[in-house]
């Protein structure tokens, strides 16, 4: 590895790596992202490596371990090129066949193909799978092109060409203009126009400026930033470099959640490699642009996703927000002008520079441009990371890409935007993924979490869940947030435990309004959203808890009872054996019964029963 002194050096290096790549025409791409790693993809990778050696194929096949491909539910997954052959749920025992049959002879292994849950048909290639076909994967598709630990891979596929374009031919003002025209808005949740942010920071007085990449993805149920930073950290860094050049910053920080060890590792490695190549440091690629980046680990506080709290944390302090009378673009980190953007926002920058603002703005709606990565999870068939053009109806995401409900249950709602967002009922599923439209509907796009709920999810419990989360995460500075969330949670707890009254619902709405109006930061201002949106769309569930002392979804423990359906029970005895509370009795091959006095509602019997005989009412 040598330092790249000029733009020509970069181009020469690229050509070399491209030649190296072309020498080997077979590539096996295995996902090493967090999801597939949890499904033991490392064992698969080791086994494939061994087989390649054993079958003397190691020099004719290129094994590329990449970041997340998105279809985590099917992990460990792999794609074999050429041919775009997609294998899922691969185990180490399959390695021999994959090398011997598919890689050597080009034969397809039927048992490893993906079966479409809707049609039941086995699908051969990645591009034909409905989950992928309905997406517009501008960012995510690039994960599979690079090994996230190899800067050479990134350079080979055109990495840093946007940076070169900027250094060669664009002034900071021209870049900012381009970003403004593209209509790019912050992907972290706020949806603030990125170009405007950059312009204000560029115009702010001062020689010392900073750029920050916010990778403190604290939203529960969201992991897109993790996958972009883990899977293609170079892209994020290139975006930051362009941003730094535009606003006039010489120093940047990647603030990444410590709960994401792989993202921390890859971000650090990227910075090290970029420094060695001279892509970070003084006079980058022979220009007068100097820039360096440090990786800082977050301490695990949701409030640090808020820009001023994040900056306090970077300064080594407690992550408490401060008033933003003067914006952080003027008075930010160490009181210097600072541009803070989210991982996905930075990752969008290089392609806007390369393909032009018009290309980016051609996708999406009037107010929301480009594509958005969504973490599609919860009670649906195909869970994973999806990327769609802004404006795509929620219905398409949940049903076409997500494949619809599981276990024959009816889908009831989708929760978008994390703890600051809200729950939207099925009859709102025609709404598009659009910053402004979802906000109007009482929710938000947020960072892109999309948790699908069906009739087995209790909406009062969901509101309680978010309040518990927010109570825990409130920094405690504002009285209204600290105490308001506490009081709201008390009321909701009363309702879920059968002590609620209808008058409490009015009080709940009043409290929600006060917390929203009088909190300082985004966390407090939006803390009431999960309560307000569930009250707005699912009031009948609250009323069932209050009036009938009943939890329609069978979730709230104080209001439910476990029983065994004698029609379905085969008397196998699994539940009886599993119950640690001794609450189940019955003779072999005869229907069993649960003693409600002894039952602790722990759910073990239900997860053990093979016949779905355990009922919760």
């Amino acid at each position, binding site marked *: 590895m040598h330092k790249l002194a000029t733009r020509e050096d970069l181009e020469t290096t690229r050509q070399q790596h491209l030649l190296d790549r072309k020498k080997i025409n077979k590539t096996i791409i295995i996902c090493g992202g967090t999801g597939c790693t949890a499904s033991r993809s490392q064992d698969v990778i080791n086994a494939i490596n061994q087989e390649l050696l054993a079958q003397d194929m190691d020099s004719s096949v290129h094994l590329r371990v990449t970041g997340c491909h998105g279809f985590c539910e099917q992990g460990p997954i792999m794609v074999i090129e050429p041919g775009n052959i997609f294998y899922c749920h691969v185990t180490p025992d399959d390695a021999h066949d994959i090398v011997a049959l598919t890689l050597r002879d080009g034969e397809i292994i039927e048992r490893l193909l993906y079966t479409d849950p809707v049609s039941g048909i086995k699908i051969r290639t990645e591009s034909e799978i409905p989950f992928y076909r309905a997406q517009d994967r501008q960012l995510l598709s690039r994960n599979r092109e690079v090994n996230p630990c190899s800067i050479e891979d990134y350079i080979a596929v055109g990495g840093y060409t946007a940076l070169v374009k900027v250094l060669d031919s664009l002034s900071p003002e021209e870049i900012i203009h381009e970003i403004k025209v593209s209509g790019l808005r912050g992907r972290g949740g706020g949806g603030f126009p990125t170009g405007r942010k950059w312009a204000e920071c560029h115009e702010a007085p001062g020689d010392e400026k900073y750029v920050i990449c916010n990778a403190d993805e604290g939203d529960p149920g969201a*992991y897109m930033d993790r996958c972009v930073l883990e899977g293609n950290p170079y892209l994020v860094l290139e975006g930051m470099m362009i941003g730094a050049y535009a606003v006039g910053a010489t120093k940047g920080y990647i603030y990444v959640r410590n709960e994401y060890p792989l993202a921390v590792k890859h971000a650090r490695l990227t910075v090290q490699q970029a420094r060695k190549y001279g892509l970070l440091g003084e006079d980058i690629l022979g220009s007068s642009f100097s820039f360096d980046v440090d990786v800082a680990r977050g301490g695990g506080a949701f409030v640090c996703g808020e820009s001023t709290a994040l900056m306090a944390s970077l300064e080594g302090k407690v992550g408490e927000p401060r008033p933003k009378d003067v914006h952080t673009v003027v008075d930010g980190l160490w009181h210097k002008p600072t541009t803070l953007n989210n991982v996905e926002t930075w990752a969008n920058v290089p392609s806007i520079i390369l393909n032009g603002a018009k290309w980016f703005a051609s996708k999406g709606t009037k107010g929301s441009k480009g594509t958005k990565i969504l973490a599609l999870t919860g009670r649906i068939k195909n869970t994973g990371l999806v990327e769609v053009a802004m404006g795509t109806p929620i219905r398409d995401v949940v049903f076409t890409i997500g494949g619809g409900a599981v276990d024959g249950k009816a889908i009831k709602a989708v929760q978008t935007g994390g703890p600051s967002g809200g729950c939207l009922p099925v009859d709102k599923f025609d709404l598009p993924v659009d910053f402004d439209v979802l906000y109007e509907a009482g929710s938000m796009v947020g960072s892109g979490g999309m948790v699908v709920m069906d009739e087995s999810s209790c909406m009062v419990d969901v509101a309680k869940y978010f309040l518990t989360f927010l109570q825990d995460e409130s920094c405690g500075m504002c009285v209204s947030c600290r105490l308001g969330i506490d009081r709201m949670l008390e009321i909701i707890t009363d309702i879920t435990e059968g002590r609620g009254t209808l008058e409490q619902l009015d009080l709940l709405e009043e409290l929600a309004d006060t917390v929203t109006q009088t909190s300082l930061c985004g966390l407090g201002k939006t803390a009431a959203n999960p309560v307000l949106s569930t009250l707005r769309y699912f009031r009948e569930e609250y009323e069932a808890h209050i009036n009938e002392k009943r939890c329609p979804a069978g979730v709230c423990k104080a209001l439910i009872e476990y029983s065994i359906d004698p029609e379905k029970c085969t008397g196998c005895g699994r539940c009886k054996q*599993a119950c640690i509370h001794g609450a189940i009795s019955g003779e072999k091959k005869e229907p069993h019964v649960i003693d409600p006095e002894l039952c602790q509602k722990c759910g*073990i019997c239900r*997860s053990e029963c093979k016949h779905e005989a355990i009922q919760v009412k």
Partner: protein
Amino acid sequence: MNLSKLEYILKGRSSQPHQLIEVLQDVQESYGYIPEQAMREISKTLGVPLIEVYRVASFYKAFKLKPSGKYVITICNGTACHVRGSQLLLDQAISQLGIQPGEVTEDGLFSIECVNCLGACALGPIASENGSYHHHMTPAKLRKYIESIHREEKEEVKHAQAGYERRPGDYAAAASPR
């Protein structure tokens, strides 16, 4: 406590108050928690008042002020895991081990952590043991899993003389995939 690791962590960071969180991260990683003595040393070296060191250490979730058990059972309670029943997993761990989240069992073997999101939402509910993830967990699977660690621990005591040693994390293979 072994001070040499702390000295190594603090090397080159003297009088740099903004390094506080990074230093605490390293101490947490090396010692498994933030010992009081370490906070006193950090305060002196970085030039940060002790109360501020304590304030930061107690504010952020990443820092533990007490040692954890040998096996940290972490239950993810992110939204996606929650709608797939993670609360039942937490209840299971609490009732089986007889401790609350943040506590350690008397024998020092287990502690329970409840976290807001481990970021593997598509595979929920997730439980992890010392950082190794187990997906699509059920209360029954978790119970068997904790039992298996208990069993192995007992065997390890038996095999101790034979020089048999097992590291945390080896249980990865024990949890049955879906």
